[in-house]
């Protein structure tokens, strides 16, 4: 039994958590660019983050980062959810648990657990934490207080030898998942799960293709909400919503219901942007730019790379999933992360980018480190870059807007 003081505190946190979520949802709904089906996404986000409804009756298996394939959780009958937090109020709650200089993603995840802010945290059966950055490593330690935790070793160097060691670790993770769901993964259930996420990948790539067109039909904030929401919706249902959205975008293209052409096209990269922390994308789009490309890990990177199964046995499929979870991952926690620069270069070309917005969440050292390399790339390609260091607070919004606005003007006058 929690005491009364805790419940009163919790009530205050929940109240403000909901207010903040509502603000982001209202901002999204106000975007004057109607897309059929997107209201379903907002509805789902509101169901979870505002009404705190139960979103599934399957056992919830929480994950962090990019490196845990959803397929193994789905195949075991679980519901995979990314527990990375994006809410400032939860960050404040987490401030008491994590040190000042740790990142807001970790703080708000910890705060959500501590204050029991959402059903996905209170009902989480198992949290699988990849040992990616230092903050995640130490967070895993703290999470033990709230739920079962499985720390998963991720090598910092991508090579054959390290990769071989990984397979048994993922197999061990599968055992842990099976224990929680009470269901064994079979060859057919794994194949089904892989096919499902592959279909989602395919639809997500279609969505990204719409953003590549010079005549844009979708704003970056809207696209980000759609992709972000993937984590919180039943995957079958998500697939059908995504199909509806893509259909409606296709109609928009046909009817030429496109946005103004002269908007500077922005590539967003850097630390993760998790709902409802849409301060940066929303601000820069409000100031007349449009985010067309998204390289962040809670955004398009999450759905970008499909799994490639060649060997169709159980063994082979697990291998393929591990490959997908590590090799294409452009997280800067990997040492010598040239993939990220290649990917950015490719994206700048594919999406016809005019400027780069680099987000550094305060405390996110790996992304801060790689800022220099991306700046170098920006110099080479003569594409201007702006770096913003901030966390989830809203107090610095105006100062940030001054810089974003000047950046947008600068591109326009080029």
């Amino acid at each position, binding site marked *: 039994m929690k005491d009364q003081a805790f419940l009163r505190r919790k009530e205050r946190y929940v109240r403000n958590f909901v207010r903040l979520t509502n603000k982001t949802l209202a901002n999204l709904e106000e975007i004057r660019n109607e897309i059929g089906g997107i209201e379903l996404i907002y509805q789902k986000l509101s169901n979870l983050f505002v009404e705190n409804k139960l979103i599934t009756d399957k056992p919830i298996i929480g994950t962090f980062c990019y490196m845990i394939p959803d397929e193994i959780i789905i195949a075991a009958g679980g519901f995979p959810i990314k527990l990375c937090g994006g809410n400032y109020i939860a960050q404040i709650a987490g401030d008491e648990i994590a040190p000042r200089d740790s990142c807001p993603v970790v703080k708000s995840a910890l705060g959500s657990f501590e204050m029991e802010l959402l059903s996905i945290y209170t009902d989480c059966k198992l949290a699988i934490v990849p040992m990616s950055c230092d903050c995640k490593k130490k967070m895993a330690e703290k999470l033990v207080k709230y739920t079962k935790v499985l720390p998963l070793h991720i090598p910092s160097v991508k090579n054959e030898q390290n990769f071989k060691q990984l397979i048994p670790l993922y197999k061990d993770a599968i055992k842990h998942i099976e224990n929680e769901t009470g269901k064994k993964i079979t060859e057919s259930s794994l194949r089904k799960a892989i096919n499902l996420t592959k279909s989602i990948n395919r639809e997500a790539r279609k969505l990204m293709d719409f953003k590549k067109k010079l005549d844009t039909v979708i704003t970056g904030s809207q696209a980000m909400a759609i992709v972000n929401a993937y984590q919180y919706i039943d995957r079958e249902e998500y697939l059908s919503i995504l199909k509806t959205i893509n259909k409606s975008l296709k109609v928009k293209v046909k009817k030429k219901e496109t946005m103004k052409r002269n908007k500077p096209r922005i590539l967003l990269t850097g630390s993760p942007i998790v709902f409802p922390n849409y301060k940066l994308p929303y601000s820069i789009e409000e100031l007349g730019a449009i985010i067309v490309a998204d390289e962040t890990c809670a955004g398009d990177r999450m759905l970008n790379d499909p799994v490639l199964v060649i060997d169709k046995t159980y063994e082979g499929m697990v291998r393929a999933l591990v490959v997908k979870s590590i090799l294409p991952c452009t997280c800067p926690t990997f040492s010598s992360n040239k993939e990220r620069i290649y990917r950015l270069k490719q994206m700048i070309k594919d999406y016809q980018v005019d400027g780069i917005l680099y987000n550094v969440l305060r405390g996110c050292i790996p992304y801060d480190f790689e800022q220099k390399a991306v700046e170098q790339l920006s110099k080479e390609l003569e594409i201007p870059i702006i770096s913003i260091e901030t966390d989830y607070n809203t107090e610095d919004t105006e100062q940030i807007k001054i810089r974003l606005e*000047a950046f947008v*003007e*600068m591109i326009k006058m080029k």
Partner: protein
Amino acid sequence: MYYIGLDGGSTYLKACLITKDKVIATKVLSSGISNNENANQLIKGLCHLGNIKEEQINGICSTGYSRRSIDIADDNVSEITAHAFGIRLTSGQDVTPRLVIDIGGQDMKVISLNEKGKVDNFIMNDKCAAGTGKFIEVIAEILDTTIDEVGSLSKESKNPADINSTCVVFAQTEIISLIAQKKDRKDILCGLHASMAKRIGKMARKYIKNGDILMTGGGAKNVGLIQALEDELMTDIFVAENSQFNGAIGAALYGMSLKEKE
């Protein structure tokens, strides 16, 4: 063709009246609480100084923090763009600026320009107001002098004091202890400017390239700071004419460019 530029900063509202190639008049008021009233008063004053009627004004453009709350302006533009435009009239004939350092009341900007004079990059201080006009103002008060005199006082220093804190509040504490040690205020001010220059230099060094460095904003009126910055970067620093009004002049020029497009 007459144009007016208004620059609503944190401390002062600056205004200027220009024609295509000349600054005719400038005027300034404390920001106060009513931007609109101040703006109207400034415009009247400028017209009087320039000996023109208000109907003769072709366009009014605003910049600065409060640019959107100035109702009389037809257009507005961000500070960065305004400063890049402004130097066309303020940089003086022999200077080809590729780097503009603007020291305002509560912020400082370093703007890098390409060979055509267009912005190709910029940085602003984002954490606090250290190294800005407000900082000097606070310290000047402690040292019983004014912001207009700190520059010349500091130039007379023979043995600058060491000031390590960049935070206004901590620097204040440090300066009070320097006063207690009976240090000369000239030396304290000189040390202060050196510490500011170090901070500004850190931001500016990233963008230094061929071409001149131009100082704008109220801070450029401070000869002590200019000298400290020259010593820090070991290069010439040029001061814009009408430096405090560079933003306003730039806004007016920007407004003019919009009207010409129409």
